[in-house]
């Protein structure tokens, strides 16, 4: 297969002169083969990144990525794209910082503009307790080599003039500021990885739902899908909110509960904030997209559900919290609202693990905050799948931590659902 034409300013100029007739499809639409060395279930960011690093770092390219809908149509295409690595515990800092670092050069690496925008992320401290928590995180981050800083209210106002510092209920006491955090274009991350995977000869099979897992002697032998059976040597389950469902097919249970998390965007307005602001006490967060829309997220539903919709009262709570924080948005019209099904673990940390089936691996539990982790997670999951045992990035995120009580407690750093 000929490698894809590179995207470049020169290519745009060339295509402009010939009515854009020369662009290739970004990825191939090939039929499913009867057998693969590795099958990844789920073509979200994490599944695609896993496949990409299997090829790039380990030369494993006889790979299929099976997706029941369209690629990037799960949480990856529904998230509010906040990227940061200011978590508290060492294993989290390591994997999120790895991901943030990879994001910095991902556009160049994939030759696909993922629009990474390190505009800075600010997490407001609005109670004394929260302030102490973030001071602790800032110290932890300093030891971990993650660049963050605790800034006072004056600097908060300087970085984001539209914040009401004296807030009616919760005045801003400061903020945890990560200047190298930011946002990226969610679809482009999925599309960029998909294009690179397809280029390496991997098959991305869309509209292919996995309906059963075949196993023999404690190992997976193949899958039943809506497009017929397929065999594999190794299986990676990377299906976020649907992990429990796939685990049930494979015959084990996971420490995961699925809930709906929603987001909304406003009508586009002129540029008014160039940082990401998270207000965890009042429970809402906001950034402005390049199109000018205010991108808003808030709370997750309080009960198991798979409806990709979310409870209406959360919208009210989120908007109330943000009007209090940014009074100027009070008359803004909201354009769209949507939901995704997020996979919550008890310690709010992800799972990258072996399973009771010898050649089956899971990557899930990213919950409300896994977009930021996509490159690091794919990197670590590829290593786990290629070697059969976790490398240093994944080692602490195994399923055994729940049995052994070695939690990676990020319930504070995970903060508002993001």
């Amino acid at each position: 297969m000929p490698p894809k034409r590179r995207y470049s300013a020169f290519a745009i100029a060339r295509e402009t002169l010939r009515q854009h007739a020369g662009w290739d499809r970004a990825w191939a639409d090939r039929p499913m083969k009867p057998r693969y060395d590795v099958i990844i279930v789920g073509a979200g960011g994490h599944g695609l990144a896993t496949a990409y690093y299997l090829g790039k770092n380990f030369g494993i390219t006889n790979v299929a990525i099976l997706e029941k809908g369209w690629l990037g149509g799960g949480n990856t295409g529904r998230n509010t794209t906040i990227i940061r690595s200011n978590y508290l515990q060492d294993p989290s800092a390591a994997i999120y910082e790895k991901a943030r670092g990879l994001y910095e050069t991902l556009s160049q690496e994939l030759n696909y503009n993922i629009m990474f925008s390190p505009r800075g992320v600010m997490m407001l401290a609005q109670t004394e307790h929260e302030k102490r928590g973030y001071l602790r995180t800032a110290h932890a981050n300093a030891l971990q080599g993650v660049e963050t800083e605790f800034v006072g209210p004056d600097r908060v106002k300087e970085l984001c003039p539209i914040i009401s510092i004296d807030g009616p209920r919760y005045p801003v006491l400061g903020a945890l500021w990560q200047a190298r955090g930011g946002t990226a274009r969610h679809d482009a991350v999925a599309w960029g990885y998909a294009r690179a995977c397809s280029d390496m000869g991997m098959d991305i099979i869309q509209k292919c739902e996995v309906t059963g897992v075949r196993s023999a002697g404690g190992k997976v032998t193949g899958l039943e899908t809506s497009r017929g059976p397929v065999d594999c040597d190794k299986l990676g389950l990377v299906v976020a909110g649907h992990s429990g469902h796939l685990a049930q097919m494979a015959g084990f249970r996971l420490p995961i509960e699925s809930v709906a998390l929603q987001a909304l965007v406003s009508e586009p307005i002129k540029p008014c904030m160039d940082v990401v602001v998270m207000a965890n006490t009042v429970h809402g967060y906001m950034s402005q997209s390049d199109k000018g829309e205010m991108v808003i997220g808030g709370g997750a539903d309080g009960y198991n559900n798979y409806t990709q919709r979310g409870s209406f009262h959360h919208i009210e709570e989120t908007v109330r919290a943000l009007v209090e924080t940014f009074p100027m948005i009070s008359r803004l019209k909201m354009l769209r609202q949507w939901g995704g099904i997020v996979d919550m673990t008890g310690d709010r940390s992800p799972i990258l693990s072996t399973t009771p089936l010898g050649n089956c691996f899971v990557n899930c539990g990213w919950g409300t905050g896994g977009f930021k982790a996509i490159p690091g997670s794919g990197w670590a999951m590829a290593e786990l799948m290629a070697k059969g045992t976790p490398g240093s990035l994944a080692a602490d995120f195994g399923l055994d931590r729940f049995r052994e009580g070695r939690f990676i407690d990020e319930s504070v750093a995970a903060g508002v659902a993001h």
Partner: protein
Amino acid sequence: MLTLTCPYCGLQADETELHGGGEAHLTRFGPDSSDDEFEAYLFLRQNPRGVHAERWRHVYGCGKWFHALRDTTTLQVFGTYPAQTLTPPADLLKAAGVEPAA
């Protein structure tokens, strides 16, 4: 808005009046149990796409804990029942189209 009828006070309560308590009918394990039993009790969940027996608390009402049988994909509620019950009542399971566990 999800609405559940509290089996104690009989009120139809909106979800804003309630607090979800997760999967119901878990077997509790105490101090002398094995790591596996403890893990299953504390963390492992069915998390089904479909019928789910779950705990709820009428926090902004009578304050009592109760159970509900609900579909997690359609949000259809098959019924609610008292907390002092070890398995969902047969009539609710029948309404949900589920075979009662042996």
